[in-house]
């Protein structure tokens, strides 16, 4: 039992084990990733056997391209994320035939080779393989390149409906490309679940803000001497905002006429309600307003703002 034997046995166990998981896993995506492990172990076997170029081509083409293509197809066919129960046929005949094939081939090869030993060949260089490919095997190589080109063109023609893919025999059973939401019941259920979760979270946040506001109101009422009729900060701010909005609109038609009567229609900012002040849009609409509007605003300040409590502005926004 040499080191190469041990390596080969270990890699073979990995390859066969993950290959068994490929054909038995109930998750489509996991089957793809087990296929990566299996193909990587086979690439390691190639390395031990002295075929380096084949090993790296295996890693590049199989692990890098073929498995990625397969996973793309898994995603494009909208495979479910969890386990799929209807992935398999009944196991009986398949297991019988598979076991028969494996047993027969194994017995055949065991009987053919027994316990013969052989020396590992000198590690094959890419140079020798390249000389062989472009020397003795150049015709199959060229045929293979034409085959690749044909496969490429064939794949494009198959998947482009405007040049190759014909509609169904009646032309009517072509299903329109599915919209992501009107898809399967599963997707719809998932979207509904997400919406319900969002609604619950919003309701929770709103209730929290309401509780905070109530607590703040109570604290404000207590601080202002226990007068229950004292307007809370919210009310004052809301009234001010209403004044700004509606008085401005009332004053709009009276443009150029008498002075706007409202003392509070001037461009004033409502403190602390939103992060940025109200833009001075009313300025052109009310040309004479600001000089006259300012004194009454100063002399008669609106109702005193109750003391500001931290953490309240966020509640106002929500």
């Amino acid at each position, binding site marked *: 039992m040499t080191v190469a034997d041990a390596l080969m046995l270990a890699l*073979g166990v990995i390859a066969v084990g993950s290959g068994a998981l490929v054909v038995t896993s109930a998750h*489509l995506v996991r089957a793809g990733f087990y296929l990566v492990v299996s193909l990587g172990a086979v690439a390691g076997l190639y390395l031990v056997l002295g075929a380096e170029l084949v090993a790296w081509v295996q890693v590049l083409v199989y692990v890098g391209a073929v498995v990625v293509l397969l996973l793309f197809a898994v995603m494009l066919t909208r495979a479910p994320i969890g386990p799929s129960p209807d992935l398999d046929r009944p196991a009986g005949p398949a297991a019988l035939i598979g076991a028969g094939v494996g047993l027969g*081939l194994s017995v055949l090869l065991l009987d053919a080779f027994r316990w013969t030993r*052989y020396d590992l060949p000198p590690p094959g260089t890419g140079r020798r*393989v390249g000389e062989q490919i472009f020397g003795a095997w150049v015709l199959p190589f060229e045929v293979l390149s034409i085959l690749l080109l044909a496969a490429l063109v064939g794949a494009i023609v198959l998947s482009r409906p405007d040049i190759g893919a014909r509609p169904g025999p*009646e032309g009517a059973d072509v299903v329109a490309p599915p919209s992501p939401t009107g898809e399967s019941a599963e997707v719809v259920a998932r979207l509904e679940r997400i919406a319900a979760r969002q609604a619950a979270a919003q309701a929770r946040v709103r209730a929290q803000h309401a509780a905070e506001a109530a607590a703040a109101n109570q604290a404000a009422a207590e601080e202002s001497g226990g007068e229950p009729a004292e307007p809370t900060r919210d009310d004052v701010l809301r009234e001010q905002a209403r004044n700004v909005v509606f008085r401005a609109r009332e004053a709009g038609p009276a443009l150029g006429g008498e002075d706007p009567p409202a003392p509070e229609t001037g461009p004033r900012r409502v403190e602390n309600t939103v992060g940025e002040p109200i833009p001075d849009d009313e300025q052109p609409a009310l040309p004479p307003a600001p000089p006259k509007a300012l004194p009454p605003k100063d002399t008669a300040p609106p109702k005193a703002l109750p003391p500001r409590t931290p953490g309240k502005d966020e509640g106002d926004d929500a």
Partner: protein
Amino acid sequence: MHAVIPYVIAALLFALGVYGVLRRRNAILVLMAVELMLNAVNLILVAADASIKSTLSGVQPEAWAYPAPEPKAGAIFALFVIVIAAAEVGVGLAIVLQYYRLRRAVVLDEVPLHEHEEQEAR
């Protein structure tokens, strides 16, 4: 080293591929199982490339013992098989995706094979 190890590994991989092709209903999983079988064949080719001549060293050299006069023929065959497998996967996935676009399913059991004839008979 023992010549039999890679061959038995390849035989087991091929058996797993056969089992997968027969068992799976999803077309993409069937393609994965086909990849397993192709890898088993590649492994046989590479192992034969490495071991056949030295295994047959005591045998009278015959023409069949040296199918290719050049060395590394097995590795080159393996390369060719890898390229063909890539082409096969490309076309196969194009067919699967086109079928999915038409029928919204990739289940092999439910592919109507005689649809055209039935509709012509109608």
